[in-house]
């Protein structure tokens, strides 16, 4: 499979201050021994689909060193590799947003992978991305968004989607104040992880270059949805339940996820 993981790990992590005062968000401790980014890297390794490129910016050297010390060997052992790409080493010398980071990473490649999986480095969950990628290839459109069911009162924390029977995303609201204002009866929340057919993605990203805002959720995804190019992958376990997933980008959810971790009773 010609696939690459792109992990967005360059954010400043202001909502996690003061934990991110001297440390990039992906490296903030989680559990008594690991870091937040371990979950995403572990998922990539377990899914065994392709190489991973970690896009860094804030305190990029620390992330690079962390990858080198802890993760490069396991990836190589599994027949793949993980590498960092810092914003300052990109063509523009800086990433101006999540979509721009992905664009510059891809534009700098001599040969584009057929499929890219774009992942956040501040989510706590276990997922085999192969199912997500298989679903993406089954519909053949530009993008697939990983999605979960959520508590309606939490709508303001998520990108909220209305999804048709076959999984086509019909509308998208970025962090609505209330679920009522969206008018969606059975909403799904975007997990902030995406699968793209690279060739089609590049067309959207090129169109967005030069814009002031260069973010997937705000700028790129809404255009794709308008073009009926986005499907949602309703993430469920074998029992049809939504598995554990938490964006730990702010202090409350970071604390909550650690408390949840202690309550896990079984493997």
């Amino acid at each position, binding site marked *: 499979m010609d696939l690459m993981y792109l992990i967005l790990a360059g954010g400043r992590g202001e909502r996690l201050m003061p934990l991110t005062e001297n440390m990039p968000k992906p490296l903030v401790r989680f*559990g008594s*021994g690991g*870091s937040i980014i371990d979950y995403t890297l572990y998922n990539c390794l377990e899914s065994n689909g392709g190489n991973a490129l970690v896009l860094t910016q804030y305190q990029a050297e620390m992330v690079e060193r962390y990858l080198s010390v802890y993760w490069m060997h396991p990836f190589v052992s599994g027949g793949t590799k993980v590498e960092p790409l810092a914003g300052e080493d990109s063509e523009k010398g800086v990433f101006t947003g999540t979509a721009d980071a992905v664009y510059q990473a891809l534009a700098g490649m001599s040969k584009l992978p057929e499929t890219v999986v774009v992942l956040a480095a501040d989510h706590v969950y276990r997922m085999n991305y192969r199912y997500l990628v298989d679903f993406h290839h089954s519909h053949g459109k530009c993008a697939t968004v990983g999605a979960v069911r959520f508590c309606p009162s939490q709508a303001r924390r998520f990108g909220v989607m209305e999804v048709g029977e076959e999984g086509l995303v019909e509308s998208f609201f970025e962090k609505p104040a209330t679920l009522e204002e969206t008018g969606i009866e059975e909403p799904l929340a975007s997990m902030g992880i995406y699968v793209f057919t690279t060739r089609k993605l590049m067309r959207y990203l090129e169109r967005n270059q030069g814009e002031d805002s260069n973010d997937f959720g705000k700028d790129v995804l809404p255009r794709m949805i308008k073009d009926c190019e986005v499907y949602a992958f309703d993430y469920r376990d074998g029992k049809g339940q939504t598995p554990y997933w938490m964006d730990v980008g702010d202090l*409350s959810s970071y604390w909550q996820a650690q408390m949840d971790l*202690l309550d*896990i009773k079984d493997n």
Partner: protein
Amino acid sequence: MPGLGRLPFSKREVIARLREGEKQITRSAVASSASIGKAVVEHSIIGPGTIVKDGAVIKNSVLLDGAFVHRGINIGGKVLPPMAEIDSEAQDSIAGEGPACYPSFDKPLAMSSG
């Protein structure tokens, strides 16, 4: 590779120890390099290099690397940043109610000089 044995959904993460010596550690994950005195640690995550002195009570909290909790201090529902030092004066700045109290950093924590 860090974390593989410490991911959620792994039994190994939660170290449940009841009355080990004179400390009480329950439903908590404690790094092996943490130093805990005759203290109560309940439903908490204690990072590497953390020091918890005698008489302290830590509940529903996350203590990151190198945090130092002085004697007799009570901490509930908080996240302590790396190298935070909590003595009786600093405790006032993180006062809050139990498990429902999310971390608040409105007031600066006392930080160790080291």
